[in-house]
């Protein structure tokens, strides 16, 4: 009888330790959880930027670069120097001339590969709209805050937006205006996107 009691008490104490242990666990609850994030190239991400023209390419760091100079790896003179240099060994076709304007339709694509099947509003902004502006000949693009549709060289603007349904992509056309002097010019293009039903900007409106 005494033995049975001792055994029962041992069981009780173990059970009590469990219960006390668990109650202490909640009072000081702590759990480690993990995240796994793949950092990928611009043309493989959720809202991906894909080069369409040879003027655009993905660099070693995975970022989209639009490059109208002989630094662009797609410049034909890299593989075939014959005919791509003049007599003074200057590269040919390696840029834009001063005070000229160039238009390129669909330089790069922006697409909606988010996993949640939502429409998104994409905003593309140029850091210098006098040098780089955007348009879409298909008239799917709007100037941010207005209902103006930039669709060609004359209507191109530096701050545009458009709506992308899941899986959809839009080619961004670029209007380039070279400066008055020779040299290299760097312009930064910023791409932002929000769910269409909860965006801080309005895009068009009909």
């Amino acid at each position, binding site marked *: 009888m005494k033995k049975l009691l001792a055994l029962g*008490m041992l069981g*009780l104490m173990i059970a*009590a330790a469990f219960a006390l242990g*668990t109650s202490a666990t909640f009072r000081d609850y702590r*759990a480690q*959880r*993990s*995240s796994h994030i793949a950092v990928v190239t611009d043309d*493989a991400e959720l809202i991906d930027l894909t080069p369409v023209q040879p003027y655009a390419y993905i660099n070693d760091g995975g970022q989209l670069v639009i490059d109208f100079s002989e630094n662009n790896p797609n410049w034909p003179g890299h593989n075939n120097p014959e005919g791509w240099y003049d007599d003074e060994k200057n590269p040919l076709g390696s840029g834009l001339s001063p005070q000229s304007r160039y238009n390129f339709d669909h330089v790069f694509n922006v697409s909606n590969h988010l*996993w949640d099947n939502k429409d998104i509003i994409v905003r593309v902004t140029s850091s210098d709209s006098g040098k780089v502006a955007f348009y879409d000949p298909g008239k799917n693009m709007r100037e941010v805050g207005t209902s103006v549709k930039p669709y060609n060289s004359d209507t191109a603007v530096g701050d545009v937006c458009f709506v992308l349904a899941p899986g959809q992509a839009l080619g961004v056309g670029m209007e380039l205006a070279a400066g008055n002097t020779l040299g290299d010019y760097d312009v930064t293009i910023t791409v932002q996107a929000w769910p269409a039903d909860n965006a801080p900007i309005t895009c068009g409106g009909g």
Partner: protein
Amino acid sequence: MRTVLKLGAGVGIMLLLLIGARGLYPSDPLTVVYAVSNGGNISITPIPPYSHPDDNGFLMVDISPESPFYPGEGKGLSVNSTYVFEGVFGIGNNQSETGFSDICVRISSADPSVGFFVGNFNGTWSESVEFTVGDSENVEVGARISTGDLSLGDYWEEFTVEAWGGACR
């Protein structure tokens, strides 16, 4: 006389056990152990598609082709980009399990590129957020991920979920 003393001690322990058991787990103690190892005192619910339960049933935030919700396109986040995901996972308080009508939850990231916020994104986030969860309430936590100058590759990081009884102060 000695036996009586022992009995008294046994009763004391039994009372503690009952309080503990009723407050936390109505069912038998074996389930208790399982629930604790599973982090089951508060409920942590993955909300698809950017999080899912891993092989052990633990919440995992996963933005890579290895996620079961990867649709075949959009493999991850690119270099130098910032993504904000609302409602990546939910934290719930069931008073019958926690024993508290309010619990305070803290979520902290070990990695400065991952920040958290509660509810809808209003422009603010933090590597460590604290919020109160009432009885039967489920609070959605979002993540703001900035790849900054990370180079291409896979990144596994950890974040900590802590909770205690009572509203946050």
